[in-house]
């Protein structure tokens, strides 16, 4: 791995300058670097390199507390990771595709926005991303997501309760695809269902710092840690340079192509501070909702599944209801770390079935990352919308029907989680330069040598974990640009 100190690279010129090293950047580089072996590529990362072992031993993903890097004046929390590999460190490894209709929300249901790309556009890159991530999943996943199911790893073992569900709902309930190995391979361990997936003790979960060695070690890639990018300089309609801060000094590198791949809060703040305001960067910030519920079982023991999140129930991920309220999906959990084992009545420790509900929300222009002139972005967000709350009510109301094949004693809604750790929007892709920042090819509408990758480009939240889709989109971009 070629690592240069910030002071060594100040004043240099590069063919490509990459900002940030999360899913968006790393999967872009995965395909881009081998195609352009003669180009000099610089990766600027605010955080540092931390091995998985370091993260487990220190019980954190980075020495930078994300909350210290923004001012939250909104109604909800946000979480992300700053460091080599970005969100590939702290994610939980869930790897479901988006539904084809997620890309057509506006034209089908009259709400939200359409994506300028379709499911078919990225379908082959879903396959590749799943292979790179080492996704363990079920062969019948293609019933919902066209072409899915060719996973390289066998699905994780479903619990006995989940097998009842699968028998009752074969077309909508599935073993959950996840980037956590069900069988260890090439030194990468098997999932042990420890449920501490953001700090995986076995390496079963995909980590860029461990599983993208070919990218980190590419001969034409130079990496600079401790480099916080502050601005992108443009001249005419061309990006010319990046100004980054390191140890209190501002340094400058020039380049021919710039790839902005920090998270949705900091990528948009960089454009705001740069005065590159086309398409209203920062606006349409949001994420879907995650809700913790529990089904108290009558006489049936649970938690015998092979990974933390074992199943997914997909009945309401799409349908006419999306015209009125958000799509929803049920994760079934074989981990009790969210809510603990059951204590009441005594001796029924395993008779509880945790269910996480994810609910789609709409993105609104007024929910935004803003620049008040200070050093850090200011977030103004009014919390989950009525669209999401009504979607939650619908999902809760349907739980007796969905889970009716189980010996249900009672269903209890526990809490809405303060964040799902998935920042979406703020630099949306679209066809209209007035309401979007980049086009279908990830190129800035005006500055054509500026590319944005990552979940900040998502025009809608969908109900799905965005990481896999983000990876697929970046693989496509890296293969084509």
């Amino acid at each position, binding site marked *: 791995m070629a690592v240069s100190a910030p002071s060594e690279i100040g004043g240099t010129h590069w063919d490509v300058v990459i900002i940030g090293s999360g899913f968006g950047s790393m999967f872009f580089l995965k395909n881009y670097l081998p195609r352009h072996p003669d180009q000099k590529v610089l990766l600027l990362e605010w955080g540092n390199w931390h091995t998985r072992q370091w993260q*487990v031993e220190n019980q954190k993903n980075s020495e930078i507390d994300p909350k210290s890097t923004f001012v939250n004046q909104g109604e909800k929390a946000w979480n992300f990771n700053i460091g080599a590999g970005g969100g590939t460190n702290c994610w939980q490894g869930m790897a479901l595709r988006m539904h084809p209709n997620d890309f057509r929300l506006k034209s089908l249901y009259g709400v939200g926005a359409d994506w300028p790309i379709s499911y078919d556009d990225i379908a082959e890159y879903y396959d590749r991303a799943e292979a790179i991530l080492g996704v*363990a999943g079920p062969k019948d996943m293609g019933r919902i997501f066209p072409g899915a199911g060719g996973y390289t790893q*066998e*699905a*994780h*073992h479903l*619990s006995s309760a989940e097998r009842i569900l699968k028998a009752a709902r074969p077309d909508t309930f599935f073993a959950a695809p996840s980037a956590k190995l*069900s*069988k260890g391979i090439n030194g990468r361990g*098997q*999932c*042990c*269902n*420890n*449920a*501490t997936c953001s700090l995986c*003790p*076995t390496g079963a979960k995909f980590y860029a710092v461990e599983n993208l060695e070919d990218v980190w070690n590419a001969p034409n890639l130079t990496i600079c840690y401790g480099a916080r990018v502050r601005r992108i300089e443009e001249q005419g309609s061309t990006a010319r340079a990046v100004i980054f801060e390191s140890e209190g000094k501002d340094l400058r590198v020039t380049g021919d192509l710039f790839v902005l791949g920090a998270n949705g809060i900091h990528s948009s703040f960089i454009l705001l501070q740069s005065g590159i305001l086309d398409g209203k960067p920062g606006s349409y910030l949001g994420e879907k909702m995650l809700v913790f519920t529990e089904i108290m079982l009558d006489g049936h*023991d649970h*938690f*015998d*599944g*092979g990974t933390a999140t074992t199943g997914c129930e997909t009945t309401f991920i799409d349908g006419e209801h999306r015209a009125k309220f958000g799509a929803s999906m049920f994760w079934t959990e*074989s*981990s*009790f*770390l969210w*809510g*603990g*084992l*059951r*204590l*009441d009545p*005594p*001796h029924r*420790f*395993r008779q509880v079935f945790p269910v996480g509900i994810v609910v789609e929300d709409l993105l609104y222009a007024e929910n935004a990352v803003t620049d008040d002139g200070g050093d850090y972005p200011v977030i103004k967000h009014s919390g989950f919308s009525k669209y999401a709350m009504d979607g939650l009510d619908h999902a809760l109301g349907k739980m007796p029907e969905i889970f009716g094949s189980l010996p249900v004693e009672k269903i209890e809604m*526990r*809490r809405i989680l303060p964040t799902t750790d998935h920042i979406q929007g703020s630099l949306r892709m679209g066809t209209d330069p007035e309401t979007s920042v980049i086009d279908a090819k990830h190129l800035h509408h005006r500055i054509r040598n500026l590319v944005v990758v990552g979940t900040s480009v998502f025009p809608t939240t969908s109900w799905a974990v965005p990481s896999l889709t983000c990876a697929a989109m970046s693989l496509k971009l890296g293969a084509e640009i």
Partner: protein
Amino acid sequence: MSDKPWAITRRKLFWGAGILGLAGVTFGARLAFSREEDFVITMTRNALPGAVIAPGAIEQFAQDYVAELDADRHANLKRLVQLASLVSSDGVDWLLQNVEKYSNFRRTTVTQFLLRSSFFPTDEGKTEPVEYYGKGPFACANNPFAVFA
């Protein structure tokens, strides 16, 4: 003697102040000598009725557990201890049994004891007293019920 039984007199004021003072001192003393570990011990014992637990097992768990709590959960525990100074640990356990935040704290805490001890291997202490295994990390033993593909 005053002919108005509820009239405030200096004597009544004196006694009232004395009682309040004594209550304050008692509360202060209980708070001063309350230990977070004791609350965890009581809460854990109450949650496992009938279990035969080796002497010192829950006590050692409580000591380790409190030491490794993150700031938020530690602050919550301190508040519980303050409340217990007024109504006892048993009282808190009873009063808050249907409060979601307390229920979650109780379940996740007791679950940690169950996982870090021989509770399940000894069939809830039926075959031999439950022993505490000791402080973590138990890198891959968070779910002893898991079955793998």
